[in-house]
């Protein structure tokens, strides 16, 4: 639902000359070295990125990747053992499975690609 809202905001803003902050709290990049990304989400599902909740995606090699759906943004980062630094590849589920809550129901309802059966 929230993602649908965001789409409508996008369409609504496109026709305006001014007075529109833009989608997701975004604006056009200006200046020679604009800030391209920050440690917080300025959109409808706004908040510090420190609070993101991650699930685990099992990659095709069987190794774990932290996976987060933060509405319009998605994040992947590899899980590594804190002591050895090695990847974590336990068989908690078959490759390509997602385990746990990737946070997709927070802020913006998820939309997924159309996949043939």
């Amino acid at each position, binding site marked *: 639902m929230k993602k649908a809202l965001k789409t409508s905001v996008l369409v609504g803003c496109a026709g305006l000359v001014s007075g529109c902050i833009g*989608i997701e709290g975004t604006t056009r990049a200006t200046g*020679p070295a604009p800030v*391209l990304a920050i440690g*917080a989400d300025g959109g409808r599902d706004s908040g510090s990125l*420190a609070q993101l909740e991650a699930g685990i995606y099992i990659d095709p090699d069987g190794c774990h990747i932290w996976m987060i759906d933060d509405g319009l943004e998605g*994040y992947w*980062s590899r899980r590594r053992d804190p002591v050895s630094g*090695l990847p974590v590849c336990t068989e908690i589920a078959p490759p390509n499975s997602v385990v746990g809550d990737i946070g997709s129901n927070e802020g913006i309802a998820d939309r997924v690609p159309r996949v043939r059966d």
Partner: protein
Amino acid sequence: MNKYNVMGPLGLVAAIAVAAVTLATPAQAQDVTGRVEPGIWIDPDGCMHWVADGGVEGYMEGRVNPVDGMPVCMDVNTCAVSNSDVLFHTDSARLTHAGRASLEEFFRSAGAFAYAIYGHTDSRASDEYNMSLSQRRAAAVADVARSVGARVAREIGYGERRPVATNATAAGMQQNRRVEIVCYR
């Protein structure tokens, strides 16, 4: 020279010439086309990741120590650190009675999906000897885990190569003689 060089002899000469020029003056910074002010996200294991929201796209990458490439982690998921003096007989991978009992209790109750077991020594004796001793000690702990039905994901001995304290004092050496167990939840 770089063993991954694929430029061929002519390219090599050119590369050396360029290197000589760049060495003569300090390297110039590249033109800055943008800036990122990332936050830090800490995963459930306690390890840090750089994270940045680019408006309608996101970026994330694990934070690493520039010196050794290791992930940078808070002390969240070291499930257990046991001192080797308690677990093992001196200079041996044979578990003490009390050591075995406490490990059995730990692996019965910790409840993780699997465990990583890392053995470490202090810096006395040779590196080779310490690698072997720590590997045998890690294997002994892993055997206890399996004996109570726990899954062992890896068992590695690092010898004296990953100290957590100075080896110049007795207290420091005692801290370095340890078995670390990481819980893969």
